[in-house]
Every structure is written in structure tokens, then in C-alpha cells.
């Protein structure tokens, strides 16, 4: 510490600066107190309240105490703050009034006057009391008196400006106390002084700053001013505040430069625009670079000087603040902005000078950081420093280029001159780094000294920044530095080193899909590979480049030519092939087969059409274009895939692009309303997940797939092609040899030793070669064959591998019921396998009794022979399988009841055909349908009988009908059938029905049964003339019991006295059953069964009203005996009640034959009769059971459940021909009753 005795002017700008406190009065006294004072002062922190709302701070105060001299007091206008004495202390030990009056008071007055003259109000008088001293004197005033006197004399209102320090050198509590009070006072006063003086200083400073627009204002002056403040803050250990001062200066300067750029130039800036003559870089090792500061003060600093100085101060403060990484960050910004500012101010800079400056500065910053942080810290904060590293690398690189150190030849004289100039601008090395081996200065000097040294330094730097980038995961940046390195190596003609970097960079660009960098890097790689003589890789890169759209046409042509010329060069090792992926060379766009199905028979010709889109910019002559096939032999007899559309491979063009959207219409019908109104309609896309998928970056074409050219016997070739740019259609022709499946595996294009290979065809495409057995197909032309008329049938002979020779024929074995018809001019056609007609010849047909021989025209293998023949199936006579009862129902009701179209009856004819290629016969079944459906019915009118035949046309054809005829086949002479219909030709249209009626007349008692045959001639209406005589259609049926035995006559009469029936009123129903004849043939068996006697026939009647018009009161059914005699009549009377008004049909009266249980059948019950009696005991149509019989109180005549298992009387229905309902169709008028709203119904 500055000793109080010798007081040199303490303007030393080091960190050791402390606020100055002057000491006046008793110097020896002060010297004795000084050690304790300097020790005690900083011990306790003191809160410093700041003006302008700045946050208060706790600071530890330190001071340097100097002897008071008048020169120390600042003169008016002196703005130096560092030398400013903040406090003046007067020390005295005086305890004697006399002495005080004699000397001390004068001294004090003088001191005060000096201070006042300099308007300094920061002073303190310290009175030290010493007990020991006091004791020696006798005339001692009370202790406080001197202090009081001084207070009285000097501190007129500031009594606190005088402090008493008791026995400072003793160790007592009183001493301690007084020390504490003194120190507190001292600190307080110091801080007050700071606040006041700094405040005043700041105000002055601000005033100066406000004048900055005035013409004479100087930035340097202001700089020095504000820096004073910074120094003081630094002195007070307030680094943050100090840094703020520098940052403000920095910002102010930057703003001026910007304004200058915007045209608002300040005069003083012109000074900074002087040409740059020195570029020695930042100097950060000294806390204050006095040389630079002096330059600034003298206004001689260049922009770089100012910036360097400013930054060195900022750096120092930041390091004090333990923020080294901010230094690195700010350094990068500073370097960038310096370069920008020089450019903006249009300062003339020799080429390379800035590079030197930046390089040196980067290294300086980095070394400074290394100097203050340990290794681990540095490694952990590479992210902050790596920018400086790479910036330095970049700059060194450009210096190398500038000085000719990168080129292969080394620097020429011009380069050397430039180097010398650059080195001159560096000046001499600074003394502080002179002893450092690796100082930036030495590094740069060495690097510029020789090519080798440059290479070493450059590679070191580049490697270092690359490693750093990699270590913090900035791979892309590392790759970029690597690329620079590669460029360097390429210039140095060491491509083997460059290749690795280029490959790595290329891989990254390809992986992330950056086209332009890919192209650029690939071009560099090509040059590198060419130098290295990596023929294969070079060709691949060249082909990729030749197809690269980002290159110019000329460059592409060049690389294309490289590929072609390389291929034409004689191979260095014969037989060696260079396999390259095809994708870079050309693209397979489409592949199709001719014939389209991709199926060809043995010996046939197949073409594979390949559309290859060449990506080369120029036509490329190909030696060979080939398709490698994989063959798998056919299993079993191969069949041609005639369902051809599917195996055709989809067009390849769709690949690569997005899949086509599959759209489906969606219609939604509202379920609530029955009319199915449309609720919503829309389109949905079924494969959204495919379409809306973000495309992955396409994997690079040089993905490491091993290219292997497969070997094999099966391949298709084309030689001597020239591939034009764009799409090329290449057709491969092949003669199918061995049957089997051929899968297209690889596509290759070869030029000399170079072979571009597509290792797998993307969708597997294959074609089949088949060998086929000859085959014969016979099929009708129409949907179905109709019996009875000529029908056309097509014969198809698929020859397969068999060659049909002249004279080969098909032998058809004749079937009786089917005729084969032909004309003389029937023709047979021969088609090739792709349905082209090759010949057309007349068909030769010869027929004998048993065999029809059809001569085939000669046809080569794998052809198709087609011809047509007519066949005629003779209509057979379907027997009337229906029972009479069912047939009796009119056909229209039948149709309605079934509700479905009746199916046509069919007949099958099997034809056996002998083919020339086989020893086995082919059996072909032809199914013919009967176009008609026939039903018959027996109709009665009293005793007269009519036969009705109903013919229904089920086919789609119209027919002409003729010669309808009904014959009694048993030929009983008495019987005559008289047609009641016209005999003329009749038309029967499709789906129509025609009825024929005959009256049955007989003389003698008629036979019980009649066998009839109905026959009908028919020809198709469309056909003019039947080619052959057609057989008539026949229909056989049998009529039984057709003679009328009983007449049933019913009559309803109104109640007596009434004119008409009324609803709800009982009417009488009278039923009369009359037998018309004596015993007849038809009746006889029944009678005989009763024994030889003529027993009366027991009959059961039943009154049923199915339409619920009538209510039958009392018994509705009953059994009576009817004598077997003509005109025998039985009458039944019962009560019925009409339920409705109107014309009502009469209720039905049914008649059954009643067979008592003791009859023959029941006497010997067998299994059949048991079954017959089980459940249904009445032989009548089952459906009538369900009909509700409104028979009041009448039990069902025939037993139901309770009779089960017991022998029961049986009922037998009479044949419909035997009962004549005389009253059928009659109606009775029923009037509504007067008060019909009450209807009494009594149920018993």
C-alpha cells in the first residue's frame, strides 16, 4: 500500500486501485493507526443506496490513504475520477488546549481553507485520545473538550464530522467500541462522498453525451469520461456496473456506425475510417491495454483499435464476473460486427488483413479462455467456443487461398509479397505473449511461412472444429467442415483423404433429401473418384450425375460421355463386369406382355414390351439389354389362364407417385320413413391412410444393396440398341419352349464391361407357357334348349397340342330321342389362339343309323375349331301325374296359389362322341326343356260331361299350334269326343295359356274310367318352315268316375210369411240329394264290397260356408242311406241365418261316401289303415279342415282326437264327376233387418 510518507501520484491503472482518502495533520499518528484501519475498513459490508432507482448494494469498502497535498485536489474541469480524493481526514492527538490554540487550530483552518477553495465538503477530523499521554500532563482539560472545541470551531452544523478515537492501539472494549463507531462513520462518509461525487460525475457525463450532436463533440473524449466511471465501479468491485458502462459505449458506437451507414455521418467518425494499417488482433491478457487506451485518448485509434480495447475491457470484466462463455459468444459477435462495420464505413483494408485480425482474435479469445478455465469446463462448453474455432478455420483457409498456400504449386512471388505485407501488419509480437510457444501471433506467422506449416495448422484447426461439432451433435456442421477439408485435400491432390469426407457428407445430404447439396457434393466426389481411379464408383457417380436435373445440360452430357467412353475402353481385365444400379441410368416405366394375358402355348410367340425411360441427356448405345427369367416348371397339365385380365402387371408408372385414391359413394337412407328417402350422400376415400401419409425421404439410390447379376439359362436379350433420352419402347420376342412359369427377375443394360442392373423387378411379373390337351365343348347357343323344335348347338374343339389332320372326324353316337340336323352349307371356322380367324370351310357330315360323323377341317395345334349344328329332341309324352282332384282345379287358381312361375319339365340326352385324339369317348349331356305345361279338367253340367285341356306356354318363343286332338286310347266305340273349340291354326304366345274343350258323349252306360291322349302339333311362330317334320306334343291322362251319380240341390227360403230373408232371421235350407242312375260300373265295386246285396249307399252330407255368410243352426252334417236306384231322393232341412245383407251365395253342401267301421277294411285293420286313421280320418282335402264351419252346436261328424286308435267310420270323397252341384252359383237376396244393431247370438 502506498505508504503515507512518500506519496507518488497514484494514477496507476491496475486492479489495485482503491478510492483515495487523504490524510492531513499528524502523519506519525496516522501511521500508527493505519495497519488496524486498513484491516478493519473492508471487514464489514455497507449498504450503498444508489440514485436513479438503482438497486442498493452491499459493498466492502477499501481505501488507499495518501498524505494530503493541495495538488491532489482536482482543479476545476478535471474530470478524472480515479485520482479523485473522496474523503479528507485530519488526524490529531492534541489534548492540550494550549497546543490546540497554538498550532492545531491554525493547521486545521489552513486545511479547511484549502478544501473550501476546492469546494470539497467531504472531510473528517479524527481526534485520538490517549490515556497514557493524558496522564503526563497536568493541565488537562476534560476529555471531550478538544473535540468539542474543534466541533465548535469547524463543524458549525455538522457535529458528526469530528470523531473521537480512544486508545486505538489498546485492546479494550472501549477501544473496540470507539473503533466501530469511527469505522461506521468513515464508511458512511465515504459512501456519501461516492454517491455525491459519482452522481455529480454522471450528471456531467450525461450532459456531455447530450451534446453529441454538436459539431465539436468527440467520441473519444466521451469514451474516456465514461470509462472513468467504469474504472470507479471496477475499483469498488462493482464489475456489473463497470460492464454496463462499456456496453453503453459499445452500443453508442455501434449506433453511430449504423447511422453512418444510413447517411448520418458524424464528423468524429471520419477519423475511424482511416485505412487499416495494423491487424494485430485482440489482446486480452492485460486487464487494461494502456497502449490502445492512449491511442483512444489521443484520438488516434483506428476502428479496430477501439473495438479491440473495448472488448478487452469487457472481456476482463466478464471474467471477473465468472462468465467466460459470454466472452466467447460476444467475441464471435464482435468479430462479425467489426467486419460489417469496416465494410459499412468503407474503410480500406488490405486483402487478408481482416482475415488475419479475425484469426488472431479468435485464437486469442480461445487461449484466454483456456487460461482461465480448466479442461473439463472447456470440454463441457464446446458449444460456446466451437463457433470461434470454425471461424478461425475458415479465416485461415481464406488466408491460405490468398497467399497461395493451398495450391499444389505453392505460392508465387505475388503471393509471397502479399504474405510479407500481411505479416508486416501484424507488427511485433506483444511482450506478454512473447514467451508463449503457441501464441496466436506465432501460429499465424508460422502458418503463413510455408505450405507445409500451413497445411499442418489448417488440418489441426479443421480437425479440431470438426471433432467439436461432432461431440456436441452438430453433425451437419461437422460434415460441412469435412467438405471444406475434402476440398483442401483435393487441391492438395490427395483425393484418398478427401473421399471419406465427401462420402460422409453425401450420405447425410441424400438421407435428408437436399437435392442441391447432393448434386454439388456428388460432383466433387466424382472428381475425387476419377483421381483415385475407382472406376466402378466413378461410373456410378457419373451416371447419377448424368441423370441429375440440377446440373446444366453440358455437365450432364459430360458425365454421360464419361460413362459411355469408359464403357468403350478396352477392359483392363477381360470378363470383368462393373455392376451399377439401373435406377440412375434409366427407369423401368411399364412392362406388358403380348398376348396381354401373359399366357402362351408351347411354340407360341410371346413379346415382352418394356418401356424404359432413359435418364441420360444423350442417346446411349447399348450393347445388350436383357431380362433375366426365373423358370419354374409347370406342375401337372398346364391350362391356359383364360381369365386373362388379372395377370397383366399394373403399369409401373403408378409406382413412386402416390397411390390412386379409392373413392366410394356413400348413400344413407333414413331408416324411419318407409319410402327410403335419401338422408345423406357423400364420398369416402378408402385408402386415406395411404394417401395422407407423409412420404418418407426416399432412400438413396446408392443404398448398400449388393448387386448381383443372376446367372441362369433363361433370359431375353436385345442387342445393339440405342437408348434415347426419355421413354424407349423395347420389345423382347421369345418363342415359348418348355411349359411352365417364367418370372421376370432382373433387367440389365450393358455397355462393354459396364452393366446397369435392376436387381429385382418391382412387382413380380410372370408369363406362363402352357401345353394343353385337346378339348371338345358343346354348348347351346341359347340359354336353354327347347324340346320339340330344332335347337342350335355350338361345338368348340380346342386343339391344344394336337394337330387336326384332314380326315379327322368326330363320331357322334345317335340317340333315339334326339336327332342331329345339318345343312349342306354348314361351315366350320378355325381360330388361332388369340381369336383370329384363320380359315373357314364347309363342314362334312355323314350320318348312318348309329353314328353321325362330323369331318373336322385341318387345324394346327393351339387353334380352335368352331361349328354349329342343330339338334332336335323329340317331345316325349309326360303322363298326367296329377290326380284328378288337383287337376280339377282351374289352372289360374293353381298359379295364384303357388305364386311362382312353373318350371319347365326337362329331359336329358347324353351323347357320346368319339374324338380322334383320344381312345375314350366324350359324353356330353344336353338338357332340353319342354316348352309346354298341360293340365286337364273334367267339367260337368248335369249329366253332360266336358273335358278341358289347358296348354301353358312356358318358353320365350311364340308357337303356332295345329291339329289339336283328343283321343280315347282304349277306343271304346260308344264314346265320342266332340271338340267345342275351333280346329283352325292357333297362336300361342310366350307365357300364355290356351284351353281346349271337348264334350264327352256316350251311348251305352259309360266305362268307369277313360284313358285319353291329347296331342298337339306345334311349330315356332318365327320359323317359316319346319326343316323336318316335327313330332306333335302329346299328353296322356286318365279320367275316372266321370259319370254323374248324384245331384245336390240346395234352396234357401225366407221364414214363412216373409218375402225375403233378413239378416239375423232364421231361414230354412233345404238340401235335396238325388241319385240319377241305377247301379253302374263305376259304383259297383263299392256295392260288391257290401256283399252281394243291394245295400243302400251311406252318404254323409256337410253344409259348410267358407265365406262366413251364413250361420248354420243345429246339425250341419249327417249320414243318410241312399238306395241304389234311379230317382231316389233324400231331403234334408236345416236352419241357417244370414249374417250379412246382400246377395249371398248359398253355403256349400258336400257329399261323402260313408264307410262304417265294421266294414271290411276296419274288420281286418292292418298297418296301412292304422296310419290312414291316424290324425286325419276324413279323406278329403286337408285344407278344408281349417275352414271355419259356423255350425252351431254341431260336433264334427268325424271323430278327431278321442277316436284316435279306435276303429272309426271312414269317409270317402266322391269323384268330382259323380256329384253335380245343381245349385252352385245361386245366390239369395238378404235384406238388412230393421234393427240390426242388436244381434243376439246364443251359443249352446
Amino acid at each position, binding site marked *: 500500500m502506498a505508504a503515507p510518507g512518500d506519496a507518488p501520484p497514484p494514477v496507476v491503472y491496475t486492479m489495485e486501485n482503491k478510492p483515495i482518502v487523504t490524510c492531513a495533520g499528524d502523519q506519525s499518528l496516522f501511521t500508527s493507526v493505519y495497519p488496524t484501519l486498513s484491516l478493519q475498513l473492508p471487514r464489514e459490508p455497507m449498504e450503498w443506496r444508489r440514485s436513479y432507482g438503482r438497486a442498493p448494494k452491499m459493498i466492502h469498502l477499501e481505501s488507499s490513504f495518501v498524505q494530503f497535498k493541495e495538488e491532489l485536489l482536482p482543479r476545476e474541469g478535471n474530470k478524472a475520477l480515479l485520482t479523485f480524493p473522496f474523503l479528507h481526514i485530519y488526524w490529531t492527538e492534541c489534548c492540550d488546549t494550549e497546543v490546540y490554540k497554538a498550532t492545531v487550530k491554525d493547521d486545521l483552518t489552513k486545511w479547511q481553507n484549502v478544501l473550501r477553495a476546492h469546494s470539497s465538503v467531504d472531510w473528517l477530523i479524527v481526534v485520538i485520545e490517549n490515556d497514557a499521554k493524558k496522564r503526563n500532563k497536568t493541565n488537562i482539560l476534560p476529555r471531550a473538550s478538544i473535540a468539542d472545541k474543534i466541533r465548535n470551531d469547524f463543524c458549525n452544523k455538522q457535529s458528526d464530522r469530528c470523531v473521537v478515537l480512544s486508545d486505538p492501539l489498546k485492546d479494550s472494549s472501549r477501544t473496540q467500541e470507539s473503533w466501530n463507531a469511527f469505522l461506521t462513520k468513515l464508511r458512511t462518509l465515504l459512501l456519501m462522498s461516492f454517491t455525491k461525487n459519482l452522481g455529480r460525475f454522471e450528471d456531467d457525463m450525461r450532459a456531455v453525451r447530450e451534446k453529441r450532436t454538436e459539431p465539436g463533440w468527440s467520441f473519444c473524449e466521451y469514451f474516456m469520461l465514461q470509462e472513468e466511471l467504469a474504472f470507479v465501479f471496477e475499483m469498488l468491485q462493482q464489475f456489473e456496473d463497470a460492464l454496463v458502462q462499456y456496453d453503453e459505449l459499445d452500443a453508442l458506437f455501434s449506433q453511430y456506425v449504423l447511422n453512418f451507414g444510413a447517411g448520418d455521418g458524424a464528423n468524429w467518425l471520419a477519423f475511424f475510417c482511416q485505412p487499416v494499417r495494423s491487424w494485430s488482433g485482440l489482446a486480452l491478457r492485460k486487464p487494461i491495454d494502456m497502449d490502445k487506451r492512449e491511442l483512444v485518448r489521443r484520438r488516434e485509434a483506428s476502428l479496430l483499435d477501439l473495438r479491440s480495447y473495448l472488448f478487452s475491457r469487457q472481456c476482463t470484466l466478464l471474467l471477473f464476473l465468472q462468465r467466460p462463455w459470454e466472452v466467447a459468444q460476444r467475441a464471435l459477435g464482435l468479430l*462479425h460486427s467489426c467486419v460489417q462495420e469496416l465494410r459499412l464505413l468503407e474503410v480500406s483494408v488490405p486483402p487478408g488483413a481482416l482475415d488475419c485480425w479475425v484469426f488472431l482474435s479468435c485464437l486469442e479469445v480461445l487461449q484466454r479462455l483456456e487460461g482461465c478455465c480448466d479442461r473439463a469446463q472447456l470440454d463441457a462448453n464446446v458449444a460456446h467456443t466451437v*463457433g470461434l474455432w470454425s471461424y478461425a478455420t475458415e479465416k485461415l483457409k481464406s488466408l491460405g487461398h490468398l497467399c497461395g498456400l493451398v495450391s499444389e504449386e505453392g505460392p508465387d512471388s505475388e503471393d509471397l509479397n502479399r504474405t510479407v505485407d500481411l505479416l508486416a501488419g501484424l507488427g511485433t509480437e506483444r511482450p506478454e505473449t512473447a514467451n508463449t510457444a503457441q501464441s496466436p501471433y506465432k501460429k499465424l506467422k508460422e502458418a503463413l511461412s510455408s505450405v507445409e506449416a500451413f497445411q499442418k495448422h489448417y488440418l489441426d484447426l479443421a480437425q479440431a472444429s470438426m471433432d467439436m461439432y461432432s461431440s456436441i451433435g*452438430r453433425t451437419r456442421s461437422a460434415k460441412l467442415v469435412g467438405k471444406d477439408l475434402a476440398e483442401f485435400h483435393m487441391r492438395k491432390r490427395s483425393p484418398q483423404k478427401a473421399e471419406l469426407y465427401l462420402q460422409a457428407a453425401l450420405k447425410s445430404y441424400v438421407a435428408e*433429401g437436399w437435392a*442441391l*447439396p447432393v448434386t454439388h457434393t456428388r460432383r466433387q466426389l466424382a472428381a475425387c473418384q476419377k483421381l483415385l481411379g475407382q472406376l466402378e464408383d466413378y461410373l456410378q457417380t457419373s451416371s447419377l450425375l448424368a441423370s441429375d436435373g440440377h446440373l446444366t445440360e453440358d455437365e450432364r452430357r459430360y458425365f454421360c460421355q464419361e460413362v459411355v467412353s469408359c464403357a468403350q475402353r478396352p477392359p483392363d481385365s477381360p470378363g470383368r463386369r462393373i455392376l451399377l444400379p439401373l435406377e440412375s441410368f434409366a427407369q423401368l416405366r411399364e412392362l406388358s406382355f403380348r398376348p396381354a394375358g401373359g399366357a402362351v402355348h408351347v411354340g407360341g410367340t410371346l413379346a415382352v414390351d418394356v418401356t424404359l425411360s432413359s435418364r441420360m441427356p444423350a442417346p446411349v448405345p447399348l450393347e445388350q439389354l436383357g431380362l433375366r427369367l426365373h423358370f419354374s416348371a409347370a406342375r401337372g397339365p398346364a391350362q391356359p389362364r383364360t381369365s386373362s385380365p388379372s395377370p397383366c402387371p399394373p403399369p409401373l408408372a403408378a409406382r413412386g407417385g402416390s397411390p390412386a385414391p379409392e373413392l366410394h359413394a356413400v348413400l344413407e337412407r333414413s331408416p324411419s320413413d318407409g319410402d327410403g328417402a335419401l338422408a345423406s350422400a357423400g364420398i369416402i376415400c378408402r385408402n386415406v391412410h395411404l394417401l395422407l401419409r*407423409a*412420404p418418407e425421404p426416399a432412400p438413396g439410390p446408392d443404398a448398400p444393396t449388393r448387386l448381383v447379376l443372376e446367372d441362369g439359362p433363361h433370359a431375353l436379350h436385345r442387342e445393339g440398341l440405342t437408348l434415347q433420352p426419355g421413354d424407349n419402347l423395347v420389345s423382347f420376342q421369345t418363342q415359348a419352349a418348355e411349359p411352365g412359369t417364367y418370372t421376370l427377375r432382373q433387367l440389365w443394360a450393358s455397355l462393354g464391361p459396364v452393366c446397369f442392373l435392376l436387381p429385382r423387378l418391382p412387382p413380380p411379373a410372370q408369363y406362363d407357357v402352357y401345353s394343353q390337351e385337346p378339348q371338345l365343348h358343346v354348348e347351346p347357343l341359347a340359354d336353354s334348349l327347347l324340346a320339340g323344335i330344332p335347337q342350335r348347338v355350338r361345338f368348340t374343339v380346342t386343339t391344344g397340342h394336337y394337330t387336326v389332320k384332314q380326315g379327322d372326324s368326330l363320331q357322334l353316337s345317335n340317340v333315339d330321342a334326339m336327332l342331329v340336323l345339318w345343312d349342306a352349307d354348314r361351315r366350320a371356322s378355325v381360330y388361332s389362339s388369340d381369336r383370329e380367324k384363320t380359315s373357314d370351310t364347309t363342314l362334312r357330315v355323314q350320318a348312318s343309323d348309329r353314328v353321325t360323323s362330323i369331318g373336322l377341317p385341318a387345324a394346327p395345334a393351339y387353334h380352335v375349331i368352331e361349328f354349329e349344328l342343330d339338334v332336335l329332341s323329340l317331345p316325349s309324352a309326360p303322363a298326367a301325374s296329377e290326380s284328378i282332384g288337383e287337376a280339377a282345379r282351374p289352372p289360374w287358381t293353381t298359379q295364384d296359389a303357388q305364386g311362382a312361375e312353373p318350371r319347365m319339365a326337362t329331359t336329358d340326352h347324353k351323347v357320346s362322341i368319339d374324338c380322334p385324339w383320344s381312345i375314350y369317348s366324350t359324353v356330353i349331356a344336353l338338357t332340353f326343356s319342354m316348352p309346354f305345361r298341360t293340365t286337364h279338367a273334367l267339367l260337368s253340367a248335369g249329366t253332360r260331361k266336358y273335358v278341358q285341356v289347358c296348354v301353358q306356354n312356358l318358353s320365350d318363343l311364340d308357337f303356332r299350334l295345329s291339329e289339336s286332338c283328343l283321343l280315347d286310347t282304349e277306343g271304346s266305340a260308344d264314346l265320342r269326343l266332340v271338340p267345342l273349340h275351333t280346329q283352325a291354326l292357333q297362336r300361342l304366345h310366350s307365357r300364355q295359356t290356351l284351353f281346349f274343350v271337348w264334350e264327352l258323349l256316350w251311348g251305352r252306360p259309360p266305362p268307369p274310367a277313360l284313358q285319353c291322349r291329347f296331342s298337339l302339333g306345334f311349330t315356332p311362330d318365327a320359323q317359316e318352315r319346319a326343316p323336318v317334320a316335327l313330332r306333335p306334343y302329346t299328353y296322356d291322362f286318365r279320367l275316372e268316375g266321370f259319370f254323374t251319380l248324384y245331384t245336390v240341390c240346395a234352396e234357401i227360403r225366407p221364414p214363412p210369411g216373409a218375402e225375403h230373408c233378413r239378416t239375423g232371421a232364421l231361414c230354412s235350407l233345404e238340401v235335396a240329394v238325388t241319385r240319377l242312375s241305377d247301379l253302374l260300373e263305376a259304383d259297383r265295386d263299392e256295392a260288391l264290397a257290401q256283399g252281394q246285396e243291394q245295400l243302400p249307399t251311406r252318404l254323409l252330407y256337410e253344409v259348410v260356408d267358407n265365406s262366413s255368410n251364413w250361420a248354420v243352426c243345429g246339425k250341419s252334417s249327417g249320414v243318410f242311406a241312399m238306395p241304389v236306384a234311379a230317382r231316389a231322393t233324400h231331403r234334408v232341412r236345416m236352419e241357417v241365418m244370414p249374417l250379412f245383407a246382400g246377395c249371398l251365395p248359398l253355403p256349400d253342401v258336400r257329399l261323402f261316401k260313408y264307410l262304417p267301421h265294421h266294414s271290411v277294411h276296419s274288420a281286418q285293420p292292418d298297418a296301412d289303415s292304422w296310419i290312414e286313421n291316424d290324425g286325419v280320418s276324413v279323406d278329403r282335402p286337408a285344407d278344408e279342415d281349417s275352414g271355419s264351419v259356423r255350425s252351431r252346436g254341431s260336433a264334427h261328424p268325424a271323430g278327431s282326437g278321442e277316436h284316435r286308435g279306435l276303429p272309426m267310420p271312414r269317409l270317402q270323397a266322391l269323384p268330382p264327376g259323380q256329384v253335380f252341384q245343381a245349385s252352385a252359383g245361386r245366390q239369395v237376396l238378404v235384406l238388412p233387418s230393421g234393427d240390426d244393431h242388436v244381434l243376439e247370438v246364443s251359443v249352446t
Partner: protein
Amino acid sequence: MAVCVAVIAKENYPLYIRSVPTESELKFHYMVHTSLDVVDEKISAMGKALVDQRELYLGLLYPTEDYKVYGYVTNSKVKFVMVVDSSNTALRDNEIRSMFRKLHNSYTDVMCNPFYNPGDRIQSRAFDSMVTTMMIQVC
């Protein structure tokens, strides 16, 4: 204003990149690609905190001597990178932010186009002209 504007897909391939002058296109491609390092770094550094704050602007990615590279990342991790000439000192953070916001809006419009397949290169004319205005506008 901006000398290069790039839109980069989540998978780091360029969806759109345009620069003026065109002769230094390659340089800008390299620059934008390299800047992805810093983008990745910033995205992983901010982690969830910034996602919650919906702060999409990444700020200055890195300065070079001549250019400043700024970044912005959408919620779907699509990145916008803008390169600005260093000498263009009039551009403050706020301007850059608003430019990015404009870019984002325009990009959203592109995405809303039903005929645009996400992941395809952006060829929208509206987007292009918006970028043009950002590039031409001289401050």
C-alpha cells in the same frame, strides 16, 4: 429483406427453399441445412417448457460474417429458416418474428388446401408470392 426463406419438413428435408440472388443458391442450401443443427439443438433444449408457452420462434440460430440465420418451428415440427443479410441492421427481432408469423400463416393456408399432400414440396403460388414480398421489401 430476407435473402433466403426455407420451409423444412419434420424429417428435415426441404419443402420449400428460395433465395436471392439465385447464383448463391447452393451456399444458402448448405447454410440452411447446417442451421438445422442449431434448430435441433434448440428444440431439444427447450423441451416441453417452450411448447407449453407456445413460443415457436427460435431466435437467431447463428450469425455468420455476412448473414444472420433465424429459426422458427411449428407445433408439427416443421421448421422455417430465414437468412438475412447481416448488413441489414434495420431488421430487429420483432420484424423477424412478424415475418415468421406471416410465413406460418401462409404455410397454414397451403396445408389447408385439400389438393396439397402434406409432405410434398410446396408449389403454391400464393405462398411463393408471399415469400417474394418478404424478400423484395427493402428496409
